[in-house]
């Protein structure tokens, strides 16, 4: 072992110093770097987004209860190192002089909120500013709508139950205020020390208690494990940062899928470059192996020497990769620090593990076949240079590299389906590319006969080495294709996100608009040059039965046993609208839209498909709602898919107007008011005091911010993949240059002019580049179609522009790399060239 280690170390040291390991080392470094940087970055981003989600519940976890919980529970949480906070909420009328309004009353302790910040504002509907303060005893913070409704201002007093409290601040937002266009009352925040004095929480009143917990996730989990057996489903509800189904959540989820895909592609690219580089490494060591065997080295010794050498290379590659990867993502994080709130100063073991695993797998599995070949070189090669490795099995090579790729995909994605789809389509792709290559080479045959021009020489070479070239062509094509896939996915996705929130996205919603106010509002909007959306009629109804089968109305968690008998219900009152026009972003997936209803037919209703699935509503079911004292009965005639990513009011249930002809409707709509005109809002809305106004700018800003940060991350990944792709191309050109060396030397010796040889080589690469680019564009369409339909759930689209861009880019890049490679070779004089051949 000592001998093999010494020899391996010596060979490694010299070769590394002489730059002969550069490509293989770079390939390993790149795979480790990209994997580490990508996964570390996405982990940190994800952590930041989780923190962000935590802000929506003002804690990492929340315990909601209808009665106060035992003090021991809270003590236990504190003992386990968790931070706790408390909120008690109820609905109550509040009074100011003659004015009164129903308010959503929240009394909090000073620790509230554990995550996120309370926002306050100087004037009603003004810009919210974060504050660390919380209401002191005797104070009350009320929101802009309450200010409007009660006609009070800061400094005035209001009556809350039996207590008289002073309005101290204007509340803009609390982290867990929730967001709903419907169903919200203006909010009031006060100190929990005053709640006794209000006498609002006595027997018979409907009061909710919220206990907030924050800390390490392991601590929270263990606390929940302790707490769970003591919880009563009827009373308590534990809430954690759950899957976010909001537009933000979906954007982030899609971005994560993209990260995953891009990282997979980056790994595959890096792996391909390792394979190419390892092949070259192996071929360059045929002679040393033959020499060592001739000098008496056993197979075992040779094996050890090279395995140890590969380990050295891998180790160095991994160390460099980890260092560079870490520095790189630190740099990116530092660069983005102002715009992207990624969590800082954290070290995650998972990305490190993945990176090391990737480095080891790539380096070992992809160099295994070249190494086996190397081991099989017979000593007789010292006498006869034409004797190569005795092992030559493409099947073995494909099996080895194929399983390495699949293993990496599986390990990295943890998703068998995605891995299988990608892998299978990869195989189909490679096979069709092989077919296409042969076809093209055949076609080129005609061009390759004739005089000795640069083009003829180029084609002749391509034709002669059909197999070698087809492998090269395919790898060029695959590389270009992978780059295209990542590029196009990035463009499509970022575009889609931006489309979600175009300039002029409504930033105010208004509800409770009466029929008589509607025209006045429209006139006011026109007068003030404000763009507004459709007015949707709304009525709130209690969903009572499906096909005469009663449904329960109590809120229960889906995965818990029913708290009451009866079918699964909506859990809250339903917002009903009615129209014969199908709303934008809605698509009928079953049945027919009710725009041609005939008198005498049952009254139709259209149901959103996901809610239909959840409540087990089927086509033809008869649904009953109680609206006020009336009963509405309608038959399900269509199911709709809704694009929830649009920021417009969307409805689970859309009735035919016939059903609602006897009801007085109120309307909701939304409009856009530029940031600079925000101060006008009070005067614009003043004549319509009973209308409820929601300012969603904060929410939109938040979505924009997240989209921006995710887009930036995607950009960063694109760059990494591009670098990986470039490296593969360089490795491939480098490898093929070695093959070309002999031919160039001979042509040169025979007196062919350097310029002609150069042009013929460049032309050869140009041809390969164009063909590879074209094949890549074709393969790109196929892969994108697969990805868009199967993985990203996006509408598939054609990308004709790349049919032109890809061949040109392929020709330019591959041609340029080829030119650089052969310039270096041809600048050597003939004797050096011949000596290099020996």
């Amino acid at each position: 072992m000592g001998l093999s280690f010494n020899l391996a170390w010596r060979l490694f040291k010299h070769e590394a110093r002489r730059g002969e390991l550069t490509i293989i080392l770079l390939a390993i470094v790149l795979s480790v770097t990209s994997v580490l940087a990508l996964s570390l970055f996405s982990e940190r981003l994800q952590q930041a987004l989780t923190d962000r989600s935590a802000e929506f519940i003002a804690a990492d976890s929340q315990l909601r209860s209808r009665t106060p919980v035992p003090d021991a529970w809270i003590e236990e949480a504190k003992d386990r190192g968790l931070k706790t906070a408390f909120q008690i909420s109820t609905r109550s009328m509040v009074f100011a002089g003659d004015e009164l309004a129903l308010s959503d009353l929240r009394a909090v302790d000073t620790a509230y909120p554990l995550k996120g910040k309370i926002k306050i504002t100087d004037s009603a509907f003004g810009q919210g500013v974060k504050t660390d303060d919380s209401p002191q005893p005797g104070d009350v913070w009320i929101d802009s709508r309450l200010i409007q409704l009660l006609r009070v201002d800061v400094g005035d007093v209001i009556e809350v139950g039996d207590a008289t409290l002073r309005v101290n601040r204007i509340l803009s937002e609390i982290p867990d205020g929730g967001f709903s266009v419907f169903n919200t009352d203006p909010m009031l925040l006060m100190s929990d020390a005053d709640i006794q004095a209000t006498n609002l929480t006595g027997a018979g009143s409907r009061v909710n208690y919220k206990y907030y917990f924050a800390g390490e996730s392991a601590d929270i989990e263990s606390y929940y494990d302790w707490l769970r057996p003591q919880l009563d489903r009827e009373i308590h509800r534990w809430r954690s940062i759950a899957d976010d189904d909001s537009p933000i959540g979906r954007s982030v989820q899609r971005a994560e899928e993209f990260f995953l895909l891009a990282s997979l592609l980056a790994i595959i690219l890096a792996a391909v470059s390792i394979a190419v580089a390892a092949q070259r490494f192996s071929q360059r060591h045929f002679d040393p192996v033959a020499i060592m065997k001739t000098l008496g080295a056993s197979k075992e010794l040779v094996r050890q020497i090279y395995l140890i050498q590969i380990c050295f290379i891998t180790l160095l590659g991994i160390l460099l990769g980890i260092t560079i990867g870490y520095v790189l993502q630190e740099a990116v994080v530092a660069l983005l620090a102002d715009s992207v709130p990624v969590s800082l100063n954290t070290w995650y073991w998972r990305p490190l593990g993945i990176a090391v695993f990737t480095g080891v797998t790539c380096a070992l599995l992809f160099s295994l076949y070249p190494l086996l070949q190397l081991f099989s070189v017979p000593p007789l090669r010292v006498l006869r240079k034409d004797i190569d490795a005795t092992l030559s099995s493409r099947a073995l090579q494909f099996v080895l590299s194929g399983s390495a790729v699949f293993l990496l995909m599986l390990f990295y994605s943890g998703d068998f389906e995605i891995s299988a789809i990608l892998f299978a389509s990869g195989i189909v792709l490679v096979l069709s590319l092989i077919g296409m290559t042969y076809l093209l080479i055949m076609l080129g045959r005609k061009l390759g006969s004739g005089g000795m021009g640069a083009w003829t020489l180029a084609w002749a070479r391509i034709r002669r080495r059909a197999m070698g070239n087809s492998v090269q062509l395919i790898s060029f094509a695959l590389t270009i294709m992978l780059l295209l896939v990542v590029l196009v996915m990035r463009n499509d996705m970022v575009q889609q996100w931006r489309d979600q929130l175009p300039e002029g996205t409504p930033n105010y919603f208004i509800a409770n608009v009466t029929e008589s106010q509607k025209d006045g509002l429209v006139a006011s909007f026109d007068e003030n040059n404000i763009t507004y959306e459709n007015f949707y009629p709304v009525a709130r109804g209690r969903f009572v039965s499906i096909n005469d089968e009663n449904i329960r109305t109590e809120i229960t968690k889906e995965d818990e046993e029913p708290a009451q008998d009866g079918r699964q219900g909506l859990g809250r009152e339903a917002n009903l609208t009615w129209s014969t026009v199908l709303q934008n972003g809605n698509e009928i997936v079953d049945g027919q839209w009710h725009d041609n209803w005939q008198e005498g037919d049952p009254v139709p209703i259209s149901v959103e498909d996901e809610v239909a699935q959840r409540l087990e509503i089927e086509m033809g079911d008869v649904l009953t709602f109680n609206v006020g004292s009336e009963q509405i009965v309608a038959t399900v005639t269509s199911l709709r898919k809704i694009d929830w990513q649009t920021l417009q009011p969307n409805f689970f249930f859309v009735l035919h107007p016939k059903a609602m002809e006897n009801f007085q409707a109120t309307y909701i709509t939304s409009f856009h008011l530029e940031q600079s005109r925000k101060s006008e809002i009070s005067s614009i809305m003043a004549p319509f005091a009973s209308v409820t106004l929601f300012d969603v700018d904060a929410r939109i800003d938040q979505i924009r911010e997240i989209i921006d940060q995710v887009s930036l991350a995607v950009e960063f990944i694109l760059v990494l993949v591009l670098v990986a792709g470039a490296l593969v191309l360089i490795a491939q050109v480098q490898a093929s240059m070695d093959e070309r060396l002999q031919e160039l030397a001979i042509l040169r010796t025979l007196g062919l002019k350097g310029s002609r040889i150069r042009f013929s080589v460049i032309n050869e690469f140009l041809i390969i580049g164009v063909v590879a680019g074209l094949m890549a564009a074709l393969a790109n369409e196929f892969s994108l179609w697969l990805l868009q339909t199967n993985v990203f759930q996006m509408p598939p689209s054609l990308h004709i522009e790349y049919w032109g861009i890809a061949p040109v880019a392929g020709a330019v890049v591959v041609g340029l790399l080829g030119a650089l490679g052969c310039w270096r070779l041809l600048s050597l004089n003939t004797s050096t060239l011949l000596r290099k051949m020996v």
Partner: protein
Amino acid sequence: MSTPPVMIETKSLIKKVNTSEGSLQILQPISFSVTSGETVAIIGASGSGKSTLLGLLAGLDEVSGGEIFLDGKPLHDMDEEQRARLRGEKVGFIFQSFMLVQSLTALENIMLPAEIAGLDNPKARAENIIKQVGLEHRAHHFPNQLSGGEQQRVAIARAFITEPKLLFADEPTGNLDSANSQKVEDLLFKMNADLETTLVLVTHDDELASRCQRQLRMNAGELTEVTEPLKVVAGGQ
């Protein structure tokens, strides 16, 4: 005076290769022997089968029939591993294209066989022998930094470091100009004489061949003893 022991002995040695047109016998049955300390040249035109014979004698290739004994050991019965061990213990090599490991320095190349054979102090031995070939100032250069003549002197040092009983040389001066050839030949024969090594040298250079005690001619796969003195152009012996 007792007869020196036999170092190489072949009995009806044949070699066949498979070609697209069937099996081709490239060595006719060859039987000859070389005694210990003898210097023997195998001469013949290109493609006559000289290198094939050398490959078989050195155990680099497998025989198709017949027997080879190297220092009494039946090479024809051994597998590749056993042959490699035997080479490491008893055989040195010099090649036309030098066959130095490009990523090792001159000194490390020389050390290599001693290390493989597990000898003590390979470095001290190499430092000693590199002086004998006059290249101590080039010890830490890589092969591509040396001239052809220098590379072959490194190869000679490498061949002798284990003090092998038997040395095979395949066209040792084939890639060198005449001045360098002379230097390398002189060195080779001097060290060979010093160590009393048995030398089997393959060449098509009659002048070089004539420096050996015995000459064998290979012609179309047949080996015959040369009895007439070789005609050597001016400058030879």
